């Protein structure tokens, strides 16, 4: 689905943050060795969503070009299956987490790039979250 508007982007942000948050919660329970990292990211994802919403509702005004700032953003490009097969070990969960983080990070970077100069603090926050995602990928490599 193409995302054209800030409202559409916000709904997609909620979806990916909630889904990825659930992923970490589910697999934190299943893989004790990943529990502390995954649970902290589960909470952090909720915080990301809240921060983005707060920023969006805080800065949106009737002059923002929020209806036109996302030409070229398509949810299909960021579609990632957030489930694991039943009988896989923790290394598969790490691999999947890395894929999720990379995909979501790319989404935020693209959204930031498209909306630069238009949506006040929102592109800056998107970049900040993308950076956190990148850091997560690095720490996953160290697990």
């Amino acid at each position, binding site marked *: 689905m193409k995302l054209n*508007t*800030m*409202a559409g982007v916000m709904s997609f942000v909620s979806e990916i943050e909630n889904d990825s948050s659930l992923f970490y919660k589910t697999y934190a329970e299943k893989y004790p060795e990943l529990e502390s990292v995954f649970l902290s990211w589960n909470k952090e994802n909720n915080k990301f969503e809240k921060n983005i919403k707060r920023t969006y509702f805080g800065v*949106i005004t009737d002059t923002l070009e929020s*209806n*036109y*700032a996302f*030409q070229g953003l398509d949810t299909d490009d960021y579609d990632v299956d957030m489930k694991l097969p039943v009988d896989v070990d923790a290394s598969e969960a790490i691999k999947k987490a890395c894929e999720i983080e990379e995909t979501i990070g790319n989404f935020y970077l693209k959204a930031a790039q498209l909306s630069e*100069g238009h949506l006040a603090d929102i592109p800056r926050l998107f970049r900040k979250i993308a950076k956190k995602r990148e850091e997560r990928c690095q720490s996953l490599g160290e697990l």
Partner: protein
Amino acid sequence: MAVKKLQNFINGEWVDASTDTFVKIINPARGNLLCEAPMSTKADVDAAVKAAQDAYPDWRNTPPVARARYLHRLIELMEDNFNELSIVQTTEHGKTIDESRGETRRGIEMMEVASGIPSLMQGYNLEDIAHGIDEYAINQPLGVFCCIAPFNFPFMVPLWFLPFAIACGNTFVVKSSPRTPMSQVELFKLLEEVDLPPGVVNLVNGANASAEALMDHPQVKGVTFVGSTPVGRYIYKKCGETGKRVIVQAGAKNYVVIMPDAVLEEATMVSLLASFFGNAGQRCLSGANLLVVGDDAAYKRFVDRFVEGAANIRVGDGLDESVQMGPVQNAESKQRIIGVIEKGVAEGAKLTLDGRNLNLVGDVPETCFLNPSIFENVTPEMSLAREEIFGPVASVVRAKDLDEAIGIIHDNPYGNASSIFTNNGKWSRQFQHDVNAGNIGINVGIVAPMSFFPFGGRKDSFFGTLHGQGRDVVRFFTDPKIVITRWF
């Protein structure tokens, strides 16, 4: 199921209007009946003004800091109900949900600025204007003020005035738009929760008769109005006759100048599309005439992209988050705009993009929808370039250089806003210095002043002296009392 009938809010209570005349409020995107609004009578207005007048003495004696606290409470309630308030705007007006959220935020920003009233309404003084004699000015409220609200920003525009008026110690009556009254009803539900003293704020739903009654009422000290120029001119004249203060923010025909060096990145295009087609062109700050300076190659490069961008705008129900432009507010508006398009064609302009050919997102009735239209070969004399359309129609005009462009802007009767897109500082400076408009944008498509600045406007776009918002509106809602003291 019985259709909901809106009520007035007078003296702290929801009351039925004394009328049998109701107007149907229709969702322009879906065509469903939302409610019916009463066309209140002079008796209803009299009751509202009486309540406001009765509340005034106690309210003006309430300390400014205490008055501001009511606004703080209202801000909290508005934040808690942010999305619900925005959905109502989209439903009754048609604008997209992002546009409504932007409107809600603007409304809240007005409250935030007005809640600084203990600082904003301070007077000033000077010791020893003569030996042993001091003089000072105290800004005092005046009494009952009112707002005659427009349909296009039904939630925000009354908030350009109401919070400042009551924070200054005045009392207030809002006459909602007969086309989009629901947003004000929702606002007043929150005002009811804030528990202001009865009569400090009052809502009358109605049309011309209610507006006339407010303007005729001897106890109304001032009128604020946002709407068309012909009506604004009438209100200004009438308020002059009845001795009222008045702010009339009226119509517009805003030029957006594209210089040959304008950066033609996506960002510029986004800004222009939002300017011309945001709110379906139904805003006094919308771009209306695109004035392109430069040779044929520069012109073509720019206009082709603009047309392509406009053609790709997704039009549909504003509650659909993929939609970028909603319908115009009612079927009459659509027919009027179609008439303008036909006239433009008859005058010889080239209709490059015809918004009458509908391409809509989702299964919506066509009744109020138009896609964006763009005319080329428009000359400044054509009605397309001179008359306010208030719809999603852009007219492309050409000029050989900036001097000619400024001349064209000055020949236009309106002076609300003008923008220039350029990277040249000299041109920018000349533009901001010379153009006779109240709001100037430099690489900004919609020049909407923030709540802490006055909302400018000149020529046929504004009648009055002081503007809405910011310090101007605080001066409008107060009068300086001069005190000179000497002690023997």
